[in-house]
């Protein structure tokens, strides 16, 4: 193997190692389980609750945010946003402190309403549009009755989205490792094909090489105007929300004075 080959393989090994580092970091965590799943509507099996709680406890510390699920039968028939805000004010959740960083998913079973809210770090990293994305992802699963799957998806997606700087679109294809890998492989293949193709020498003459420019040219030209057509299209204004029939809402402030982002919908 030559020097260049060695360098390449070293580089590959380094990248592989670097990709694996987060995995080893995860393994070091000590499990001090915190109650994050409040299944007050009693829609989940106990082992599912345990499972989700473990998941939330695993991902939460990495984003310094509590991922909370709150289900309720809503005996007093209150609005889902109010329920969420009261939950935050009264129970004072938070990763760092009481009334701290948190993301809350409230599932209200009476009117089948759904609300996602981010507080503090949760608000900063999960703005209304990101919460909308999460809600749109899990609403069909909730409609189908797959509560456990939907909650797990909510925890994982919230965790993932919080890894992106606020303001960028986390679903940008450029951020997808698989897509990045595919693009990288395509670039590699293209470069190699071009190199192989050019190894036998290239044509280095062009259309001007043999042209006698003194004796070549346009002898006569005519350009006749025929007609003009005009088309007009309406410019779509950007201020319409993409929530559709079931979505919308947004953030607000709780009566306890905690500002939050939000996304509401039904399922």
């Amino acid at each position: 193997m030559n020097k260049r080959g060695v360098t390449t393989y070293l580089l590959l090994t380094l990248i592989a190692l670097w990709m694996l580092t987060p995995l080893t970091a995860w393994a070091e965590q000590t499990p001090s389980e915190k109650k994050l799943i409040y299944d007050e509507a009693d829609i989940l099996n106990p082992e599912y609750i345990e499972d989700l709680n473990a998941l939330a406890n695993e991902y939460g510390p990495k984003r310094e945010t509590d991922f909370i699920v709150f289900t309720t039968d809503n005996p007093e028939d209150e609005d889902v946003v109010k329920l969420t805000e009261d939950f935050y004010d009264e129970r004072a959740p938070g990763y760092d402190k009481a009334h701290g960083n948190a993301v809350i998913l409230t599932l209200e079973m009476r009117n089948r309403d759904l609300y996602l809210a981010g507080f503090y770090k949760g608000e900063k990293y999960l703005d209304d549009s990101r919460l909308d994305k999460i809600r749109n992802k899990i609403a069909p699963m909730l409609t189908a009755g797959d509560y456990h799957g939907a909650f797990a998806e909510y925890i994982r997606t919230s965790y993932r989205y919080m890894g992106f700087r606020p303001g960028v679109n986390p679903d940008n294809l450029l951020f997808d490792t698989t897509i990045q890998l595919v693009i990288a492989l395509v670039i590699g293949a293209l470069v190699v094909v071009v190199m192989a193709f050019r190894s036998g020498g290239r044509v280095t003459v062009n259309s001007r090489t043999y042209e006698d420019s003194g004796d070549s040219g346009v002898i006569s030209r005519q350009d006749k105007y025929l007609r003009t057509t005009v088309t007009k299209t309406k410019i779509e204004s950007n201020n319409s929300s993409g929530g559709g029939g079931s979505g919308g809402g947004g953030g607000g402030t709780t009566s306890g004075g905690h500002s939050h982002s939000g996304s509401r919908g039904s399922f």
Partner: protein
Amino acid sequence: MPVIEYKCPSCGSGMTFDSTTGMLSCPSCGRKDNIEQIPDPLKQQVFAEDEVREYHCESCGAVIVTEPETSATTCSFCGSAVVLSDRLTGKLAPQQVIPFAISKEEAVAAFKKWCRKGLLTPRGFMTADRIQNITGMYVPFWLYDLLSNVDVRGQGTQVRSYRRGDYQYTETDYYEFYRKIRLHYVRLPIDASAKMDDQLMDKLEPFPYEQLKTFKTPYLAGYIAEKYNYNSEKLTPRAREKTMPYIESYISSTVNEYATVSYAEKQIDTTVKQAHYTLLPVWMVYYNYKGKQYTFAMNGQTGKVVGKPPLSKGKITAWFAGVSALSFLGLKIVAWMLGGGFI
């Protein structure tokens, strides 16, 4: 006798063309003669065509073994440079020649250098120590002067787009255009040897035409030369075909004020003004690698090398892996800078 040799007037040794000085030189005593001033023996002799079937070396008397196309070679017994003059007269008389500017040693060195530069060539190949044979060969070409008269008609559009209020307006102007173009292509080379791969020869271009000389046989002394297999009429279609992309690109350059163009009529009328039979210098390199023979050609003036070298699977893999890994890393960094986090 149809065999010409150049004996040194001083010492009697065989003289050959020297690519460094461009003169006929004697390897024994170092005498150099200016080719332009030597009377060409070819002009003084007249041969009936196909008169001779066997050539004898002037120096040793041995039969010169040649292929039917060969017009200059060296005697395989004594090594004298010989020119078979009946294959260079009459219809077969070349009009011009570009002599070699690169000597055999320089050619070998240039070839080795080129091999080392090959990014995908196997390491064993890169040392270039298995050159089986390197031959300086004058390859017959026709240099065409072509005149094309082009008439094109068609429709073009110009598009403007602007915003007024809540609407985006797109205005498209339609024009009918006509262009009459005269294109003169000079000294377009087409290889006239059946043996030579056309694509390989096309890649050897360009040849420096400022080095074109009126043909004289001493230029061939010490090299192999071939006579043409195809006459200029036979190769005219190839010449036309070769100018087609040039003409097309010229046509589109004359209508570049339009955003879109559709041609209704395109008439290209090409006539051959003249075609000069010219010998161009090519070093042919025959190379053995792992039991297979590879053929390369080198422009005898510019040193440009063409020909398919073997490709190393290991190097292809390494490059593919390396470029992919770097691109992946690059994409990760771009994603990270855009705010995407590393996972």
